[in-house]
Every structure is written in C-alpha cells, then in structure tokens.
C-alpha cells in the first residue's frame, strides 16, 4: 500500500466539528477548543431595538461590540413570536426570550446547553422582578447600575456563580444596607 498525505494547515479548530459527530475522538477537540466555552455576552434590548443592558464576557473592541449588537438586534426582532428560541448566528448559538417589551438575548458556544441558558435568562428576570418588585423596562433604564450589580452576583465571567435566588438577593440587600441614608444628600444640588 502507499500512503500520501497532505497537510490541512494550521486551521483553528472550529467548534462546529464537535457537535457534528459523536465518537470519542471528540475529546481531542474538547481538549483543544472547549476552553472558550461559556456565555459570550448578554444583551437586553427593547422592541424598538434600543439597547438597555450589555454584558460582554469576551474581550472585543467597541467597534465589534456595536456591529454585533446591531446585527443581532435586527435578526432577533425580525423573528416571529412562535418561533423557536434558538438560532445559529455566525459561529455562535443565540438563545433569546422576550419578556413584555424587553428581549433578553444570550450568545453561547456550540457545546453549550440552550435550555439551561434559557433558564439563566429566566432566573435573571426573576431576580430583577423580585428586587424591583414587578420589574419593567423603566426600572432597568433608570437603575441600570443595579441591573449590572444583580447580574454580577448571579453570573461572573459568563458562568453561573450563585443560582439561589435567596442568596443573590441577600448579597444585594446587604450592599443596599451599606448605603448612606438618603437625607445626607437632600441638600446637595442636582447638577
């Protein structure tokens, strides 16, 4: 027999390969490339396409962030209500869900679990809801910093840090208790 061989070059392994076929050779792929597996970013935007919150778990330039946001908002808004909550977008999987006027949209990698991501979104909504008391878009606009703080208690670096609702809210409550009483500022000029 004769063997000829060709080199396929230094292709970066693409995450697609792993899901495409089973077999234990996938381990190779896993070792090499799964290190990046996590949530890539989370975006909250309104039905009008206004971005209300953005959290990036991978380093990207501002330009890239803007481009991704624009494209994704357009793609998701174009989808009809009964459609499925997952879609392939570039090399990523998008998981999104609409709550009232707000879309919650997460980008995860090929190996990640769509359904559990959907419930990450839901748990975050529950946390906001409990904290603000029946949350609405305006709460998030006017208290965007709180929305970020709650998210940081729940997810860190794109991974679940604390999934217990009680514990997350306890942490935020404690922080709130550390706040200076309001009257201290009553006489401070507004601008």
């Amino acid at each position, binding site marked *: 027999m004769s063997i*000829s061989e060709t080199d396929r070059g230094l292709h970066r392994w*693409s995450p697609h390969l792993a899901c495409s076929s089973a077999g234990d050779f996938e381990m190779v792929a896993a070792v090499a490339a799964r290190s990046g597996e996590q949530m890539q970013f989370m975006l909250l935007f309104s039905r009008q396409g206004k971005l209300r919150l953005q959290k990036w778990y991978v380093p990207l330039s501002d330009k890239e962030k803007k481009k991704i946001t624009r494209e994704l908002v357009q793609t998701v808004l174009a989808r009809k209500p009964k459609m499925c909550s997952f879609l392939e977008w570039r090399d990523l999987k998008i998981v999104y869900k609409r709550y009232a006027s707000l879309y919650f949209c997460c980008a995860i990698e090929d190996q990640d679990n769509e359904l559990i991501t959907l419930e990450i979104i839901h748990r975050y909504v529950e946390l906001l809801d409990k904290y603000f008391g029946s949350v609405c878009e305006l709460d998030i606009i006017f208290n965007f*910093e709180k929305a970020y703080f709650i998210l940081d208690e729940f997810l860190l*670096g794109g991974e679940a840090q604390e*999934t217990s609702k009680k514990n997350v809210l306890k942490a935020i409550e404690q922080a*709130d208790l550390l706040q200076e009483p309001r009257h201290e500022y009553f006489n401070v000029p507004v601008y």
Partner: protein
Amino acid sequence: MPAVSKGDGMRGLAVFISDIRNCKSKEAEIKRINKELANIRSKFKGDKALDGYSKKKYVCKLLFIFLLGHDIDFGHMEAVNLLSSNKYTEKQIGYLFISVLVNSNSELIRLINNAIKNDLSSRNPTFMCLALHCIANVGSREMAEAFASEIPRILVAGDTMDSVKQSAALCLLRLYKTSPDLVLMGEWTSRVVHLLNDQHMGVVTAAISLITCLSQKNPDEFKTCVSLAVSRLSRIVSSASTDLQDYTYYFVPAPWLSCKLLRLLQCYPPPEDGAVKGRLVECLETILNKAQEPPKSKKVQHSNAKNAILFEAISLIIHYDSEPNLLVRACNQLGQFLQHRETNLRYLALESMCTLASSEFSHEAVKTHIETVINALKTERDVSVRQRAADLLYAMCDRSNAKQIVAEMLSYLETADYSIREEMVLKVAILAEKYAVDYSWYVDTILNLIRIAGDYVSEEVWYRVIQIVINRDDVQGYAAKTVFEALQAPACHENMVKVGGYILGEFGNLIAGDPRSSPLVQFNLLHSKFHLCSVPTRALLLSAYIKFINLFPETKATIQEVLRCDSQIRNSDVELQQRAVEYLKLSSIASTDVLATVLEEMPPFPERESSILAKLKKKKGPGAVSVTELDDGKREAGELNGGGDRGPDTAAMAASNAVSTLSLLFICKTLIAVISHFHSYPFIPYLSCCLSASIPALFCGLSLHPCPVLWPPSSAPPSEDPAPPLSEADELLNKFVCKNNGVLFENQLLQIGIKSEYRQNLGRMYLFYGNKTSVQFASFTTTVSCPGELHKPVEPLVEGGAQIQQVLNIECITDFSDAPLLNIKFSRYGGALQNLTLKLPVTINKFFQPTEMSSSDFFQRWKQLSQPQQEAQKIFKANHSMDTEVLKAKLLGLGTALLDNIDPNPENYVCAGVIQTKSQQIGCLLRLEPNAQAQMYRLTLRCSKDTVSKRLCELLAQQF
C-alpha cells in the same frame, strides 16, 4: 425589599436620564449629551474638590452616556478615585465604570490594581467580592500578573467566606482563560477538586466551572474529579425535589449544577472503576426515566430545566459512545421530542439526533424516525427548525434510504428558503453521488437539481456529473437521452445548457439512431439556446459543435455556416471569436482521421474525490457536513487519492493529468502530436494557447504534491531515529478493526484522534493531534511509513499548539498484513524530545465491499474455496459481551455484508465481502459460531487468497 434599594438618591442621574428619554430627535439627544459632558468636564476640572457623592453621580452619568453608544474619553481618573472610597456605593460605581470602560491603560491599571489589592486584603467580604468581580470582568493580562498567585490562596483558605470563594473561583477561571501561563498549578489544585464536595451548593456551582476548564487542560492532574462528580451527581439526581431548598428550581433539583457535572464528565472517558461507572450509568438511567414521569409542574421552566439535564446527559452518552442500551434509549427519547408541541424541544431533538446518527450503535434507531423528520421538513413554520431537519436527514442518510431522502430534499428545495438553497443543493448532490447504486438515478437527480434550483447549482456540481458520466460507460446513453429531453423545455437553466452541450458533444451519437433525436435535431436544439447564454456557455457550445462535426459528418455544412457567420467569427469577445475561427479552420483543413484524433472522446477522469464536499464545508463550516464530513477535505487536501504521489510514476501521472485537463475542453489527448503534425499551419499554436488558457479553475491543483513543510520554519526537525512501535501498538490497532473513528492514543501530553473512511481500494484518514498541555510543542513532526516493498516516508508539517489536523490518503495496492507505522516527534518547551511510534489502524478489512448473496450462492462459493490453505479457523474464548446487537454492529463495522437466513443455525453469523486492492479483488466469506454456554466462538474464514484468510482470522479473533 426595602424601598431604599430603588436607586440611592442620585436624583441628578434620574433627571438626566429623563431628559434623554424626552429628546424628540437624535440631534436633540446629542445636544443634551454634549451639554452634560461639558458640565461634567468643568466640574472635574474645577478648583473646588468634589465630594464623593458628586463624583459618583458624574461617573455614573458618564457610564450611562457610554452605554448609549457615545465615546467617553475622560473621567477614568475620577472613577479610580472612587475605588479607594470607603463608602460602599461609591466604590461599587467606581468598579462598575472600570469594568465597563477600562482597557489596558498602563498608568491607570497600576492604580486600579492597587485599589484592588487593598480591597482583597481588607477582609471585608463585600469589598473582596467587588474587587474579584472587577478582575473577572476586566480579565486583563496586567491583572493576571498582579493577582494570579493571590486568588488561588483566597479560594482554598479555610477562613474564606463562601460568597468570596464563589467569586474567587470564577475570577480565577477568567484569568486562566486569558493568561493560562500565569496561573500556576500547585498545592491548591487538589484542594480545588475537593470543592466538589463542599456543603454549600453555590460554591460547588461556581467551582465546577473552574474545575471543568482546568481538567480540559490538565486531565491527569484533575482526574480524581470524576468519582467526586459522579457521587455528587448521584446525590442530586436521587434527591427529592425539596431536599435542596433554594437550589431547587421549579421542582428540579439543582439543574445548573447537574448540567455542569455532566459537562465535566464529558472531559473524560468512561470511568474505569466499575463501581463508579455503575453509579454513573444508574444516574443516566434515572435521568432518562424521569423524562417519562409526568411533570411536577405545568410551568415551562420546570420542563426546560428537566430537559436541560436530559440533553446534557444525552451528550454524555453520545460522548462515551459505548453503551448501546443508553444510546438507543436516548434516541427513543429524542424521537418523542420530535413530535413535542414545544418548538424548542423539536429543534433540540433534531440537533441532538444528528450526532446520534453518526454512532454505529444508534444509527439504525435514528433511521426509524425518518417519516417524522421528513414531516418536520415539510411542515415546520420556523426556518431554523427546518434547517435542523434537513441536517438530520443528511446525517441519517445511508444506502438504504438515500432514494427517499434525496427525493424529499429535492421536493423541499422547490419551496426552500433562499438562504439555505445552495447548501441544500450541495447536500443533495453529495448524497446522490455517495449512495448512487444506479447511475441513471444519479443523473436524474442532478438534472432535477438544475431544473429546480439551477441558480444555486455551483460549478462543482455540474462538473461532477460530467466527470461521472464520462467515467461510466453504462450511463452515457441514458445521460444523452435525458439531457436531450431536458433541453426540450422552452425555458431551461443555463447550467442545463452547459451539461447538455457537453454530454451531447460527447455522446450525442448514442441517441442519434432515433430520428426524433437525429444529429441535426440535436444541433438545432442546442443552438436554439445559444443566443440566450453567457459567454462561457457559448464557448462551451462552440466546442460541442466542433465535436458534432466529428461525430456526425452530415452536420458539418450547417455548423460551418454557423461558425462562419459574423456574429461568431467577428464576435467582439476574443475567446468566442478565436474559437469560431479556429474551429472553422480545423474543420475545413483537417482530414477525417486527424479530426477523429483531435476530437476523440474524452478519456476517463482520474478517479477523484468529489469536490462538492469541500464546497459544502466551506459554505457552512466543518460541522455542517456531519456524517459525511469524513470524506471531505478535497482540493486543499490535494485531490487525487494518492494518484499524484506514487514515487517513480509521478512524472507520468502529472503529464497525463495535464492532458486530461486540456481534454476537458474536448481536445484530444494527443494534442501535442497533432500540433507537430500541423506545424505548417500557423493557427495551431494559437489553438493550444487558447485552450490552455481556458482550463477551468476546477482543475488547478490536480497534480498537487504534498510538500513537506516544517514549522516553525527555522527549527530543524528532530533528528533522532523513529522509536520502535509502542508495546501496546497492536492492542490500539485492534480497537479500530471494526470502527473507523475514535481516539487512537492518549498520554498526559498528547491525544491522537482518528477519523477515516474507505471506498473500494482508497481511503482517507484524518489525524487530530491534540496538545493537552498548556505549553506549545515545538518541531512537531510526524512520519508515516509502510512496511513492505513500498516504503514511502512522508513528512507533513505540523505545529504545536491547540489541535492540528492531518490528512492521509491511502491506496491499497495489494493485500497486506502489517499496518503502516506512524512516528511522532516533538519537543516540549524545556522538556525532552518525545519520540513515539504507533501503528496506524489501517487493516486489510478496511477495503471490504459488502456483498449480498443468496443462500445458494453463498454455499456454492463456500465450496469453491475449499482448498485447505484458503481456510483459516480459530476457536477462542469470548473477551467481550456476546450480545447479538453488539456482535452485529461489530460485524457490520468490519465492512462485510451480514447475511441473514443463510446458516441453518440461526445463532450463527455469516458475512461476505470483497476486498478491493489496486491489483486484484479478493473474495472473502466468514462464519462466526458463538457458543453462549461455553463463552466461546469458532471463527472460520475462507478467502480467495490464503494470506488474507490468515490475517483476517488473526484480526477478528481479537474482536469478540
């Protein structure tokens, strides 16, 4: 929740946000923002020192402006000042600003790091968490340098609060991802693994993400996590829905942690310890059982969380790919989801089934759902779900259902979304070729493709149908008749005209006997399309015409007249004009003999891999190709299956390749001879020029040689002699006799995965080299050598790093016993040269073509092979399960056809196949007689060549 929590008194911020919201236009908004920026700038620059509250408020406003999408180029220093405030909210806003806005600004980073350092050592858990969140959010290299050694200490210290541990674990994970070289393994690593046992579920949830990532990079150091993970999982799975209190989510105990545990286990092969494995299988079974129980709540959150675990468990089952029982159960479960009312579940089931389709154990089970999947393709309202259905059909396709699947995909194409049409076309073309038993079906399919979706049929597709028609005598007449009929349509796609022109030019004579398709009728039909076509198609048609002159002398006058008319001979397009002039001249000067030689029928194309797979892969990324990705690779991989690389023959091969390339444009393979024959005619050299200039791009790379490349270029390859094969090389080889994909080899440094596929006497093997360490491998070299007369050492390049892939094209010249050797050498930074030799799992049975036959045929052949040396027999003890399904899967994996109802004893297995080598075909018959009581087998092989019987018998005796 206390009312105080809603905002903390920054009224100015609220007013500003309201102002922005009240802006009627973009311009008004910008104006308002600029006013605010000017105000903040003057405050920051002003002489009066700002109090902490004002600083916080202004920084927060800047943040808001930035989040609206405007650039912010000041305020960083004020934010950094806030970090050292001892008021929590000021610190918090400072950290938020830094997390969102700061990139590596060296001056600032130093100040930020200082503040972080203070907070980390403050022993105030809330401050520590803020600092850790900031590191995790920014994750820059400077921060890794400053804190990578500190954080592990915080993580494992006995007195660290749980909440701080959680943040520390994920913070460390982020640093490990961005700067793995700075996070050094040490004494802390073993203690981290034990966090899996922590009482606090939140700590386990956070720590497991870190452990999973570390295990991927250092599997050996962390392998104790497997048993810990299994016992944790088992406790969760068996707990009642209320046991875990707040970690129960809609009656599902700890869904996030469960998913992460199952994901961690996917970093490892199945546990070797029987007890651990048993416990894990029990967990997986429990998860599958729970899917059948009635839901504990009607809320979608309940079913989502439950199914998230189920899908993760199925991923693990697929990853192990060794438990036929679980695989089939998983498949049945997904089958139920295929008809679920939740679109999300249908989508995921289709997606997950794609991977199940490629496991030998579950392929058949997946196939039973074909009708449902076809139905999904037809009726799903969401295009992304239909896309999944199409992918699954493609993945489950095999010889038995190809006709049905191709037909369904074709009919779907008529209404398919534009966005996915090209991909669908490629898939149909690939399946039609791959599973064509009857080539007239193949031709019909491709012509239908062109008819239905001509615009999406790329060149690769129609080139391919022509190659196949040219190479197969038996389909040429049919092809000519079919294209002739297809061209009758008043409007037909230009691609159809191309295929039609080419095929009639070559094989029009095969249908010319019928007066309805006489030469002139054929010509007129083709020429009726001429004026509607683009230049390249017209050029092709002109070539068809000159071929007609040779095929049918009676058309000569008509065609010459066409060529002579001004619109041809004076066409403004140089290519067309030149062809018209040259063909006209050729037809009037050359004698019939010369014409017949010049315009001889195309020689067969060298057998090549289909170029359309490459196209599909390019289109959608490697994953799209699913099962059949095994045989893609194509052009960049150097086309010819070893054809261009047979040592001494190379020159000859290259020459003949070049010639057949020319002949694509209908010019005979003896062109060179003809040119010399016609040397007195000045136009002939032009002819050859013009033709060689028109060689379609398809054929470049035809005589590609793999050139050895070394990487990095400067470093010389390790010069040590290849090591002798590892002692376990034979054992590793034996694992692959009945399967084509898997992990060939693994140690602490390196993992080598293999995917391969074979067709007739050709094979293609993909080798995946995974670097399991975090350091680069230098001078990575692999060498393949074949024992026996055909020594052909080949050195590919390779690089160290994450994972690289190598492709081998294999041709079986004659039967053989010894496997080729694969030698790998590389050095690790600071380590010794690694030198290891394995046997490549290429065994003679890979070149089997299954042969179906009746009982009488079988016994007749069995008797014919009755010489004593043609038979090899072995009686041996069973080493593996004697389960029927497992045995069948193995025998099918062997490559032979498993024949039913042949052996009078239904317990016995009978197989038949033909081994294809370049020089000959070797018929083989096999009989395997299990004796369950004695746990023994008797294996008998009869082959037309004695060495093959012996070798197969040796190989197979190891398998059962």
